[in-house]
């Protein structure tokens, strides 16, 4: 039961870890749902005309693409292809950075157009901020997995950290799929 830390997970423990992560994701989804609900409860579907739609679309595309590369990274390591795993993880990280830079650019504009004190600004900044923090934490985890991976830490039999981080990454992506229309499209 209390095995040494470096040893890989037994199949039983792996199953537990997966289940735990899924439950964590469900719980996180509830957090996002509260902030999304507050947007509709506070101001219905109102939306300012000045939103930067091309930028919103661009960062959405970058994030969706990053889920694909993350998926490929996981598949590669599952098949023992270390180089492919590292390459795809790097791509994912790069797209994450693109997304975050895009959000910062959005914020710079939004500070003038609809600052946090306005009703739309309140939901805009808190939803993009909350989600941005999740992207940032996911990116840090991806970086960790990448660095460990470079030192040959994972193999086809033993890649739970990769799988876990990638699942989390997909979740962050799916959360954006709900946030993007909530902020940019409805109304």
């Amino acid at each position: 039961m209390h095995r040494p830390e470096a040893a890989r997970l037994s199949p039983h423990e792996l199953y537990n870890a997966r289940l735990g992560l899924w439950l964590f994701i469900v719980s996180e989804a509830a957090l996002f749902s509260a902030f999304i609900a507050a947007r509709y409860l506070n101001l219905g579907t109102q939306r300012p005309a000045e939103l930067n739609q091309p930028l919103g679309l661009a960062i959405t595309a970058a994030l969706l693409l990053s889920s694909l590369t993350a998926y490929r990274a996981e598949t590669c390591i599952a098949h023992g292809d270390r180089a492919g795993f590292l390459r795809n993880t790097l791509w994912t990280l790069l797209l994450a950075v693109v997304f975050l830079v895009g959000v910062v650019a959005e914020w710079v504009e939004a500070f003038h157009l609809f600052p946090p004190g306005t009703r739309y600004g309140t939901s805009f900044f808190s939803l993009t901020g909350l989600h941005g923090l999740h992207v940032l934490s996911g990116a840090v985890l991806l970086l960790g997995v990448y660095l460990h991976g470079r030192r040959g830490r994972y193999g086809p039999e033993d890649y739970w950290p990769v799988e876990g981080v990638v699942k989390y990454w997909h979740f962050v992506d799916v959360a954006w799929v709900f946030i993007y229309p909530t902020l940019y499209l409805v109304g």
Partner: protein
Amino acid sequence: MVRALAPVLKGLAYGAVGYGVGGPLLAGLVRALGGSFPFDLELATGAVVGTLGWLAGVGVWDTWARGWFGLPLRPWPEDKSVVRYFRFTTDHKVIGIQYLVTFLGLFFLGGALAILMRWELMRPGMQLLTLNGYNQVMSLHGIVMIAVAVAIFLGGLGNYCVPLMIGAPDMAFPRVNALSYWLTPPVAVMLLASLLVGGWDSGWTAYPPLSAVNAPGQVLMIVAVVIFGVSSILGGINFLVTIARMRAPGMTWGRMPIFVWSVFAASLLSFIFTQYLAASLLMVLLDRVAGMSYFHFARGGTPVVYQQLFWFYSHPAVYIMILPAFGAALEVITHFARTPLYAYRWVVGGFLGIVGLSGIVWAHHNFTSGMPDWMHAPMLATTEAISVPTGLVFLSALGTLVRGRLWLRTPMLFALAWVWNFLIGGVTGIFNADVATDLHLHDTYFVVGHFHYTIMGGEIFALFAALYYWYPKITGRMYDERLGRVHFWWTFLAFNATFFPMFWAGLHGMNRRIADYPAALGAVNLWTSVAAFVLGAGFLVFLYNFVTSWVRGPAAGANPWHASTLEWQTSSPPPVENFPAPPAVVGGPYVYGIPRARHAALGAAGGRAG
């Protein structure tokens, strides 16, 4: 002494440094560079970084996080003495005791605050507190007791008993379990420290617009409750995975002791709904530190939305409190009636029905808040519908009592009192749930009476039933039965004497959360105060009994109650990893009076997966 406390001292030091760096230093830096950094924000960032520092110092870094960076871990030397209770230890039994002791301490702190309030309320006019001081004491009492009610059953007895009762060596994620516990001391520190920065006066519910503009103490309260929420969520996930995956061979879902089911149901609620509490408080925080306009009136916010989100958690929260109490009370009743639990399957269905319904009743707290009219009738109906699954639990208790032969030891006395108290709590809830009556009862002492009958009379009485019941298992020693009975009768009578008159006071216009009242209500308040002092004093009997028995009580043996469930089939206290070999479960949990029925075969090497 220093050796024993080394990790805690290190945690405190790191925590203080974390606060300094994340709070004043960061704020000073930003201000020096010409930026603005409100004091509220300084408190919040300081408290968060301080908590991380505390965790790192107390053992997360040495025994866990170093591994993430590929560094070798530095575990503390193994220790079997009392020292291990001051460590980041993964044994679920140690963690259970850590929770129990911490939260009993907080329970007594909250009790002392209640005594202060009752002193103030003893006579009309002001006695010893200021108006604002009263509000702070009332708010602190409320949040401390809510935290106790949420954590003491799940964190304390859930942790200690669930792995034992399902025949597991530990929880599914032992280190996450330790993390859940070690997140709670900073919560207590922050709640108390809030008094140094003006306290807060908005009650445990922290309603805006007041909470968006009051003293900075509110910020510490918010951060504390959010961190407490993280701890509950991690704990809930841990219980769910443990119960789903760590059961001994043959321990099917239908053979689980009812307490395990109740922990499962409560965990289902806590791991989802706690996020709504976090969200609603974070929104208040954003209003305060980032100038947002969720609820801030002057900026066009809508405070009613807070009430919706807050109660979307906080109603389920009352079931997070009461479900494990249901489970424990039924557990005690069935063992001490020496008969199988009546209608076991219906109770399980009742638990799950409560879980399902509790997400759709929240707005019965908002009948007077100015929410849309169309929400009134549905919320009335769903709330009263909860009586059905709750009634199943009740009928099971009654059925078991009728069919059994009662063994009236202290745990059973407390469990029987639970039936009585909770009946009153539940029945008065119906008057709160009816819109027509609630319009008059809301924010009066009637509601105070209702929730003290449910939480103190229901949950805390069940807690004492469970504490006396599992005391010999946890300590290996027997408590003093005579003192146990004294404690029981004292508490039971004083409790009812304290809280029953509150219904009357509420009906006669005594508002809740006030420091002063019309002279006509003097007599009932004097009575209530005196009864409350008597009630408070009764806990000294409990303390004396538990402390002295732990030191020199008679050895209890493995199974002093001749109970059938697994936790009694191993030594008292159980060894590390609980059972010499995984037990093989062959039948239902309560095999009383059934010829040749057995719950488990011990010592059989059952070969657990993994």
